């Protein structure tokens, strides 16, 4: 008897999740714009993965003769101030920019959700303290916090990801917590509690899977946000180390040539804009698909 209840309680969640996932995917597929975003993003991922095979030049190879040349057949996107091929640099740069976005969101979402889960499940004083701490972090402009943390950690790929991830943390925590507050009173949680399921287990296998869908939407948009934030960091002189061709770094290194060689500024900016556009289209689609009001 006892056993069967446990099984029912435990298996209910994954099955629901499975069907939820299928439903979301069906909904997504109906949304042409979201699919467009998804296709662009996946295409970008493939392209940057295949960068070594596609890119016509080494992204660090300088050509002192071909400095700041406009787009041509040899150099599709032209060359930069050191005679490097911008097309190759954008291909490789995508690896850094996109992964910086993905990793920093992965970190902030995971950590943020853990915090939110703890707060949401325990409620009371624990919740109160955690939320007040998050209030403090959130009352600082995200950019400011990122800059200070970046200065503490120093520049570089890994450090920048860490610095970026801090500012997504409170939002992720809050969102999961709010969602959990709603889920907490559901019967299946009561059922799990009644059979002495450990708190940790309840959080991990019941509450989180049933509460995190808004976080997915937030994370999708967050990747876009982080890419822009990383670019802004490069602009201020923090961020990755040269010659890393992160898009923001390319953009900020090129900005003084905007009058003479606008192509140096246009293409990295375009790369960022298209990626963000794709991610936002995806995020919009996901949100619509997950919106209970649109469930039919």
């Amino acid at each position, binding site marked *: 008897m006892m056993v069967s209840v446990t099984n029912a309680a435990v298996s209910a969640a994954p099955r629901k999740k499975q069907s939820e996932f299928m439903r979301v995917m069906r909904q997504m597929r109906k949304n042409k714009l979201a699919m467009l975003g998804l296709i662009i993003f996946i295409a970008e991922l493939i392209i940057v993965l295949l960068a070594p095979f596609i890119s016509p030049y080494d992204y660090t190879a300088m050509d002192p003769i071909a400095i700041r040349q406009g787009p041509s057949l040899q150099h599709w996107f032209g060359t930069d101030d050191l005679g490097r091929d911008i097309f190759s640099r954008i291909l490789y740069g995508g690896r850094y920019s996109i992964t910086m976005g993905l990793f920093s969101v992965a970190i902030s979402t995971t950590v943020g959700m853990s915090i939110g889960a703890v707060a949401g499940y325990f409620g009371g004083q624990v919740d109160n303290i955690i939320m007040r701490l998050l*209030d403090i972090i959130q*009352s600082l*402009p995200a*950019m400011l916090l990122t800059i200070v943390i970046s200065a*503490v950690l120093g520049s570089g790929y890994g450090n920048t990801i860490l610095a970026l991830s801090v500012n997504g943390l409170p939002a992720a925590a*809050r969102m999961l917590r709010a969602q959990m507050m709603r889920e907490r009173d559901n019967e299946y949680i009561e059922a799990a509690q009644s059979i002495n399921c450990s708190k940790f287990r309840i959080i991990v296998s019941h509450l989180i899977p049933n509460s995190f869908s808004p976080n997915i939407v937030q994370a999708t948009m967050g990747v876009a946000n982080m890419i822009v934030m990383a670019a802004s960091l490069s602009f*201020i002189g923090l961020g990755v180390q040269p010659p890393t061709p992160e898009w923001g770094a390319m953009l900020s290194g090129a900005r003084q040539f905007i009058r003479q060689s606008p192509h140096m500024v246009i293409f990295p*900016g375009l790369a960022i*804009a298209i990626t963000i*556009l794709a991610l936002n289209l995806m995020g919009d689609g996901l949100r619509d698909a997950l919106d209970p009001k649109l469930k039919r």
Partner: protein
Amino acid sequence: MARYVLKRLLWMIPIALGVAVLVFTLMCFCPGDPAEIILGSTATQENLAAKREELGLNDPYIIRLGTFLSDTFIHFDLGESWITGASVKEAIAERLPRTLLLSIIQLIISFGIGIPLGVMAAVNQNKWQDNLCMALALIGISIPNFWLALLLVILFSVKLNLLPAMGIGGIEYYILPALAGCTNGIAAGARQTRSSMLDVIRSDYITTARAKGVPEWQVIVKHGLKNGLIPIITVMGTHFGKMLGGTMVIETIFAIPGMGQYIINGVNNRDYQVVQVGSIFLAIAFSFCMLAVDLLYAAVDPRIRARYAKGGKRRAKKA
């Protein structure tokens, strides 16, 4: 109501304290020796040691933190910049208004353009107007603002010679920076307005109003927009915070001596006093803005007003 406001104002004190501790601690871990930066690259060891002593850098963390907190929050002494010796209070009094002005103009443009776009999209749902507005909003989100800033300068200052490209002065100096910084806000405003309007527009009272023969624009503004306003205000609030931070980049490009530049220079120079006090002020400005948002809720929604009056917690927007 007054009690609610008072409570919120009091709550800012622990926030400011928390921010002070947080930023102070972070700056402690910042590599680089302030004494060496102040004295320059050729200072002698004795001078350096004396300067460190003078700044209290040799004291243990907890004592320095205590001194800083008591100076700031008990004696209201914001101290001097370590690098320049200029009063931080005066610098902030000069700079904070510029940053706030810039952010407020951004906010006004964002929602002055965003809300009409959103309304237009919602009223013409799925027609070309809708598509156009939402496409504009998507583009607004996609453009990195410093990139846009450079392009705007070239268009409006160099090619058209309409607006000043940099510096401070009259209100016209803030237009380009505000435009560059507000695309995200326009987009967010338009999207939120559209979705809240769509929610409201199908409801019964709208149909009733139309049936009563109320003019269409009145239906939209008085009945539709007013009832869909709360989520829009929430978006506005969050964006104000973003804009406050975003001005760091915008100020650098447009040579506006505001808080963003001040704090960035402070971080670069390891001018702890500037960074700490500057951050506290930005946080307080942000808290005030959040309070304003909550009061706006009350202004548009009598139910929330009633809840505040009862001293209930502010949970309206989190639900």
